[in-house]
C-alpha cells in the first residue's frame, strides 16, 4: 500500500512543498492510513451530510449594500512589495 512516485510528484506540485525525504513519505503514508478508516463505515444509501448543524444552519442573505472597501492603504500595508497601489507578484 505504498504511495507511488507519480502521486508524490503530483502532491508536491500542488502543494509547492518538498517532502520527499523518507520521514515525510512515512508521515504521508500514516496520514492516509488514518483517513482510510472512513472506508470501514458502510454509507450506502446515506445522503452526505453538509454540516452537523444540518437544517438549523440557515444561509444568511445579505442586502445588496456597499458597506466595505476603500481601505487601500490598510491592505497594502502588509505587502512586501508594491508599485503605486498595486500588489506585486512574480511573473506568470
Amino acid at each position, binding site marked *: 500500500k505504498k504511495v507511488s512516485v507519480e502521486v508524490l510528484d503530483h502532491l508536491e506540485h500542488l502543494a509547492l512543498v518538498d517532502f520527499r525525504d523518507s520521514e515525510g513519505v512515512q508521515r504521508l503514508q500514516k496520514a492516509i492510513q488514518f483517513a482510510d478508516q472512513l472506508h470501514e463505515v458502510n454509507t450506502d444509501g446515506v445522503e452526505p451530510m453538509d454540516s452537523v448543524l444540518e437544517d438549523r444552519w*440557515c*444561509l444568511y442573505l445579505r442586502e*445588496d449594500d*456597499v458597506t*466595505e472597501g476603500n481601505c487601500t492603504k490598510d491592505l497594502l500595508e502588509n505587502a512586501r512589495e508594491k508599485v503605486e497601489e*498595486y*500588489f506585486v507578484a512574480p511573473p506568470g
Partner: protein
Amino acid sequence: MAARGCGGVWRRARQRGVVGPGPGPGPSPRGQRAVVCNARGGAVPAGKSGVAPWIPVVGLEIHAQISSNSKLFSGSQVQFAAPPNSLVSFFDASLPGTLPVLNRRCVEAAVMTGLALNCRINKKSMFDRKHYFYADLPAGYQITQQRVPIAVNGSLSYSLCIDNKMSQMVTKTVRIKQIQLEQDSGKSLHDDTRSQTLVDLNRAGVGLMEVVMEPDMCCGEEAAAAVRELQLILQTLGSSQAVMAEGQLRVDANISVHHPGEPYGVRTEVKNINSIRFLAKAVDYEIQRQIEELENGGTILNETRAFDSKLGCTVPMRDKEGKRDYRFMPEPNLPPLILYDAKSLPANLNHQQVINIDWIQERLPDLPSVKREKLVEQYGILPEHSFALSNEDGLAEFFESVVKQTQMKPKKVIGWILNHLLSYLKQHSLTVKESPVSSFLLADLLNLLEKKEISSTAAKQVLAELWKGEGKTPLEIVKEQKLELLQDQKELEQICQAVIDGQENEVIMMVPG
C-alpha cells in the same frame, strides 16, 4: 431542402481560393484551401471534394458579471474602472479571519436568469471550493458551485439569417447544461520588462453567473447568435449588463471535429475572445485548423488556446502545465442555499431571508423573443425587421415613438428606420441614443412625405440635411432648399406647356429651386 444556417457539415474545398458566399470563415491565414459550410449556398457540390465530411462541435462557457451594487460574498462595491485596490474588503483580499456572506441580489439574478432560460431551479444548491494558485486569486481557491448548481437543464432559442440579406430567418435551440454562481478573480497586469505581475483585486469577488451551453452548435455564426441572444436576455432581465468590452460577458469556446458516425474528437478550449464578432472568427478558425491538422495526419491536443484578434487565429496559451487538479471540496463556511416557491414557503417567514422562485417568475419582464413577436403582431412588420429592431439598443423604442407621431403606416416607417436611420448610425458608429435625428424630427419628415408635400427623393435629401444636426426642422429645410412638391394644378400645366413649346427660358424661371 431549404438551407438551414450552418448545415452542420463542413467539407474541404480542394480548389485554391474557393470561398463560400456569406459569413463563411474566409481563406485560411496560411493562404491556401478554404473550408466552407455546405449549406451556405453553392460553393462545393457534394462529392467533389473527395474527402469524408467533418462535423464540428461547439460548446460554450459564458461568464456573465452580475449587475449588483456589492460583491457576491462581501460588501465592497462593484464598479468598472476605479483606483487599484480601492474596492477591496478584507475578505476579498483573503485576510485571515474573514468569512463569506452571500448577497441576496446575486441569488435573485441567478434565479431570474435560470427561469428565463427555462431551467429547473434547484431549491437546494451548494457552494464548493475550486483550488488553483494564481496571483489574482488571493485565497488560492474560488468559491463556485460544482456539485449542485443553482439552475440546470434549460434551453436558449436564437435566430439566424440564412443569407446575408436577412430575408429568411431560422430558429435554433441550444441546451443549457447549468448556471452556477461563482466569484470573479482579480486582474493581473503582466510587466515582462521588470519580470513581475501587478495585481488589482477590485474585481476579485464580484458575482458571476457561469452559463454552460451544451455542444449543440456547429459554427461561429451559431455561437455568435446564441451569445447575442443571451446578451439581450441578460440585459432585458437586468441580471447582467453583459457588455463584452467591459469584461461583463466573457466567452470560452470548446471545439472539436469528427466524421459522421464516429465518436467526438479531442476538444480544445479557446479563450480571450473579446467580442461577438471575434467569437465567430475564433470558432471558425479553430474548426478549420483542426480539420487541416487532422487531414494532414496530425493530432489535436486537449489544450487551451487563446484567440489572437490581430492575426485572426488561435495560438496555444503559454502556461501550459498539464491537467489541473482543482481538488474540489464543499465550502465549509457556507451551508446549502435553500430557495422556496409558493408551496414551500415557511410559516413564520422573514421576507428578507427568503427567496421565492414563483414571486420572481411572476415579475419577469417580456423576453426579447416575446418583444419581437409583439412588434410583429402590433405593427405588421416582418420577423426579420423585428429582429433588426431589437438587435440595436434603443431602436425598437425609436421606431415605436416615430409610429406614434406619424400617420405613415408602420410597414413604411420600418423602411426608413432600417434602411436610412440605422445605416447612417452604423456608418458613423453612433448609438440610437446619439442620433442627431430624433424620433420627433423623423416623424415630422415622414408626415410631410405622407401628406405628399414632398417627394420620396426630396425626403432623403432633407434627411441628409437633418443628419448635420443643425437644429433645423424638416419644414425649414424643405423651404430652404425649395423641395416642396407643386400642388397648384395651373402652375404645373404652365410648366409642362412651356417644356412642350420648347421655351426653355421660361421653364428656368418658373421651376422652383
